[in-house]
């Protein structure tokens, strides 16, 4: 893959807009004067006395010509004419390729950047199927991330109307009134929905949707890179259910998927669908030049490891990046940051040549009317500066702006590019500035600009066969249609797991949901399982966080997270707002919170005990024959976590301002873990035995946990950490990084596969960090991990990364000291 550069908006996207004649006449109103040239801003930044040294890297994603292709032969002329009439005379090459493959009857994944015109890749085959079948064909479109946009359905209906056909596309979601639902079931040629409605509404009631399932040609799924973790693993099972039901009605739908660029698109799609797909990832759409600047705030106190505050730096950058003749977007990761920065920029507006009204905030929690107003202001050019969160990352059309400032790395490559994709007008150069925070991932990105522009690096954790998820989804599937055992006693129509029949037996014998007779499992319970099965893995043990005053729910936290997240006195954060937990009613699974303006957050300390249940694979480096140096493992573990006390830590400065005890029962979970073990020989050679050995080892584990999301699509909190200087199981220093989801959803496995990348990134972060002896952006502050931690961790990492790389080794033979 050449690069991930952002594509110009007005190319492929054109086809996604509503193409009524009236819409085409509405041109963007004239702007005041000429937009300020991005080159001028770049020049100013490069010569700016304060800023020039803060920007540690400049890179360029060069402009690229678009590669066009003809509409594939075999497309019905009526379909092609509609697109030609709307001004699309040729396709981008990847669009043509995707459509060709779809017309050949293949499953297709289009994995190209934002705004490269992916919608067209499925609109054309779907319209073609309708044209070929005289309107008999049906398709189901699923959007996993966004609230369903009526725009999409309207755009499709406009195309259909332009063809002069009586076909219909409808949006089916929680807001669809019952009166419309019947029409939609019977007359909806194209049904746009989301995974939740498919799971709870459509599949359990498939008889009502028989028309759709009998003629189902295509299943379209947008943004499949978001299908990871518990949610993705659950959705993969919903797709298994979908395929079973379609097959029951005699159809064999093909899948048309789209995603952001992915590291392993083929393997992701295969896990999701259980079958190979054709991947189209050579983007043919044109790109304007994009300049990327990485801003690293200076180290203020190398001993404490304190960097200048990122939000302050954003204010500083605004002096150059904001102006009356162009539009700038600031992305913050917290809602409160949006408010703070908006307030400041409004105050500073006159000095920047703006009126305060031209500076707006935009985030979740604002009333819809206000949001529409800001969106409109951005489209018309009336709003010059917008400060936002990920609320403006996806889906909403605000036109293309000129400069983006990212206050902190958004946590994933797709998110980064979605944010960066907000800027870049037709043929105009654009600028993206990312401010690095005091965080290992941000610091890594600041030092490795290539990480952003080269091929994607994140692996996706996805395990549809996780026993908890699979068994819950099998309940839903059995409700929909009975399961039949083959002659060998296996069940063939629900993925490759060997456990299906066993789980069905379990659901029948132990839980009485099913009745087994003559090789068939039937649903025989007075229940509607989809109601109780959450795609996000919510379960009845989750703790509901309630506003102590209004008793309204403000959030939910899983069972394992509750003891560290909502203990008495915890600061619970929702979208950047701080709530103090007044009382945790453990037995009733309720935590009561009061909204406070807290200047600290809480960090709970835990004692975690990891017991190895089974080891599956091992990579080992030998020091000499039969003498191990270190090993990496993947296996199943039992984790017991006891919350002991919590510390109050100030935002930004990370100053510790107090500690209290926590009194709650321990949590237990069975899951998958990645483990790293060091032989005693290696450990003593690396001076791990001296002084601060335990805390240095733990600091290293913490660093690994925090940089892992560079190579793994997840949040640091999705991984649990336990370190031991002498593990009872391995009898040597061990770091466990475990999947916090019961049974695991593939994170540990992906980490096992990519652990050397993670180690290398951790070493880069350590070496690149300006702090003296450890700071929040590397192993942690020396006040916590000891003054030798940084040096020790660096030594260990360098040792682990030296050649030779570990190779596959025996799992049974631990070569333990006798």
């Amino acid at each position, binding site marked *: 893959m050449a690069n991930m550069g952002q594509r110009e908006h007005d190319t492929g996207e054109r086809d996604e807009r509503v193409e009524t004649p009236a819409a085409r006449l509405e041109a963007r109103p004239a702007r005041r004067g000429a937009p300020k040239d991005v080159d001028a801003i770049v020049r100013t930044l490069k010569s700016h006395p304060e800023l020039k040294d803060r920007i540690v890297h400049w890179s360029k994603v060069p402009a690229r010509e678009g590669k066009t292709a003809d509409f594939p032969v075999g497309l019905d002329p009526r379909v092609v004419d509609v697109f030609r009439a709307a001004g699309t005379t040729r396709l981008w090459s990847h669009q043509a390729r995707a459509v060709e493959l779809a017309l050949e009857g293949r499953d297709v994944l289009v994995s190209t950047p934002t705004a490269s015109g992916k919608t067209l890749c499925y609109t054309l085959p779907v319209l073609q199927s309708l044209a070929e079948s005289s309107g008999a064909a049906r398709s189901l479109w699923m959007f996993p991330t966004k609230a369903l946009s009526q725009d999409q359905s309207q755009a499709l209906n406009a195309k259909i109307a332009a063809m002069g056909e009586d076909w219909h596309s409808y949006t089916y979601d929680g807001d669809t009134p019952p009166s419309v639902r019947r029409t939609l079931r019977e007359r909806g040629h194209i049904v746009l929905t989301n995974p939740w409605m498919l799971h709870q509404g459509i599949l359990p009631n498939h008889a009502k949707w028989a028309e759709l399932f009998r003629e189902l040609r295509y299943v379209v799924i947008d943004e499949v890179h978001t299908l990871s973790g518990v949610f993705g693993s659950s959705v993969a099972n919903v797709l298994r259910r979908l395929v079973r039901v379609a097959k029951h009605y005699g159809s064999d739908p093909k899948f048309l998927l789209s995603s952001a660029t992915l590291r392993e698109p083929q393997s992701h799609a295969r896990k999701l669908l259980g079958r190979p797909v054709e991947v189209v990832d050579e983007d043919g759409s044109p790109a304007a030049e994009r300049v990327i600047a990485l801003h690293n705030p200076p180290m203020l106190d190398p001993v404490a490891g304190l960097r200048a505050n990122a939000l302050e730096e954003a204010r500083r950058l605004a002096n150059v990046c904001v102006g009356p003749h162009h539009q700038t977007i600031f992305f913050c990761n917290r809602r409160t940051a949006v408010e703070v920065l908006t307030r400041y920029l409004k105050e500073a507006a006159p000095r920047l040549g703006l009126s305060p009204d031209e500076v707006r905030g935009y985030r979740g929690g604002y009333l819809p009317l206000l949001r529409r107003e800001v969106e409109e202001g951005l489209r018309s050019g009336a709003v010059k500066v917008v400060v936002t969160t990920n609320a403006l990352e996806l889906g909403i059309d605000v036109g293309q702006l000129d400069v983006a400032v990212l206050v902190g790395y958004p946590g994933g490559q797709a998110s980064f590019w979605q944010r960066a994709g907000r800027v870049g007008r037709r043929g105009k150069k654009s600028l993206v500035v990312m401010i690095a925070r005091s965080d290992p991932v941000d610091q890594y990105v600041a030092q490795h600009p290539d990480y952003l522009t080269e091929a994607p690096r994140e692996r996706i954790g996805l395990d549809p066969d996780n026993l*908890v998820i699979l068994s819950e989804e099998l309940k839903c599937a059995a409700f*929909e*249609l009975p399961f039949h055992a083959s002659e060998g006693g296996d069940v063939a129509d629900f993925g490759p797991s060997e456990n299906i029949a066993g789980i069905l*037996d379990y659901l029948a014998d132990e839980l009485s949901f099913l*009745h087994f007779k003559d090789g068939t499992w039937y649903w025989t319970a007075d229940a509607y399982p*989809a*109601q109780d099965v959450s795609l996000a893995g919510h379960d009845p043990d989750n703790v509901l966080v309630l506003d102590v005053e209004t008793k309204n729910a403000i959030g939910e936290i899983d069972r394992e997270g509750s003891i560290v997240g909502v203990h008495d006195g915890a600061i619970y954060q929702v979208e950047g707002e701080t709530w103090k937990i007044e009382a945790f009613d453990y*037995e009733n699974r309720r935590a009561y919170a009061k909204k406070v303006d807290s200047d600290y957050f809480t960090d709970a300390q835990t004692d975690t005990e990891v017991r190895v249940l089974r080891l599956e694979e091992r990579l080992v480096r030998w020091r000499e024959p039969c003498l191990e140096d270190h090993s990496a493992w993947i296996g199943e573990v039992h984790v017991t976590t006891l919350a002991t006390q919590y510390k109050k830590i100030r935002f930004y400065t990370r100053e510790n301002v107090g500690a209290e005890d926590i009194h709650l029962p321990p949590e237990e979970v069975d899951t998958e873990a990645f483990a790293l073990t060091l032989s005693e020989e290696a450990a003593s050679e690396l001076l791990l035995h001296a002084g601060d050995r335990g805390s240095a080892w733990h600091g290293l584990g913490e660093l690994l946990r925090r940089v892992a999301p560079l190579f793994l699509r997840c949040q640091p909190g999705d991984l649990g950490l336990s370190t031991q200087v002498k593990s009872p199981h391995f009898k040597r220093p061990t770091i466990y990084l475990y999947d916090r989801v019961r049974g695991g959803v593939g994170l540990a496995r992906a980490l096992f596969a990519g652990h050397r990348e993670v180690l290398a990134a951790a070493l880069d972060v350590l070496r690149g960090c300006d702090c003296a002896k450890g700071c929040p952006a590397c192993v942690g502050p020396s006040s916590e991990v000891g003054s030798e931690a940084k040096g020790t961790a660096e030594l260990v990492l360098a040792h682990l990364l030296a050649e030779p790389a570990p190779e596959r080794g025996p799992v049974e033979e631990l070569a333990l000291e006798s």
Partner: protein
Amino acid sequence: MSELADKLRRLRRDDAPPALPAKGPAPPAWLRERLAEDIGAADPRRNVAAPRDLEVARTDAGAFAYREEQFDEDHRHGEVPLADIDHAVGDVLGLVAKDSACAELPLRDCVYLDVETTGLSGGAGTISFLVALGRFDGSAFRLWQGFLRDPGEEAAMLVDVARRVADAAGVVSFFGKSFDRHRLEDKMRVFGIEPPFGELPHLDLYWPIQRLYGPAFPDGRLQTAERELAGVRREDDLPGSRAPEAWFDFLAGRGHRLEDVFRHNRDDVLSLVVLAAHVGRVLEEGAALPGAPGARASGLARLFAARRETARALDWAERALEHGPPDPRSLGLLRADLLARTGEVEGAAAALEDLAAGEDEVAADALLALAKLYEHGSNDPARAAECCGRLRTLSERALTGRPYARAVRGLAHREERLGRKLARDA
């Protein structure tokens, strides 16, 4: 395999004794009853044997079981002979069902339908395991109950049910338009069986009984209606809500109460016959019908009013007022409206003035009706304006305007118009 079960138990936390106390409200009464039963000695009503007198039907789609029973048309269900169905008048059924198709319904050629399912939620996993279809045959009433000995027999039974329903001239049920029909139809679609209900007339007795007796009866259940209207007394009835558990017990080879489910299902169908007979007779002069006569007359007045049969509506409204209806004030409002429609403006105005003296929604509606009557009926804008003023005072006196929202809507507009008229007249 047991290793897998162990793992599932641990991961799913199925074996964890409810470490946490049950959330939410106490279990429903039937469940507590059931739990208490399980603790007690073996229940003599429970039985592991298959239900009695089952025959096996063999179809192309497989076999299933059924039971057939026959009742003489003189058989009394409660206090009513089944043959009373002949007293039901088609036009009356059309009136109370608000469905002209029911006026033509030959009740002796209909199927009387009632279904026992594994749950109320619907969806593909809800199974109709016992389907009763009753039908007259000469001087007999034949009751057919199709039964699934295991879930695999569902398709076969539904094929036969579809055939039997399609063969009838119509369907009679209680709440079947909303429930039973859809349970059968959904599963027929799953098995690719053409559902027979499409154009078939369907008399769903739930709604007529609501219209006639809703305000007078404590609830809308079939058991209430059959008791009040046909004197049916069930003994040791197993509530329908416990039918699923009986079938699950049977499938699992445990002691079950399916015999009670068969009986319950049978009684439901027999009640359909006597209730259809009842609602088809409500206009019969001289018939001493059971049930609440005031509510019935009030309901009939409304039904005729809706059909714009003003004279008959007025007649029934007067009769209802004699009996003492459950809703005298709103019926009074209807009567005043009917009087106005027949041109008896003074009578209407007097009745409305009486009602307007109150302080409730009816009073507000009466004031509005008066305003209209004076403005358009007797061309007296001054009195109309006065009524508007009283309505405004009434609504403002209420703590919230909400109870009167309907009456007050458009009031300002009316006042303004009246103001203009008055100014012009002056």
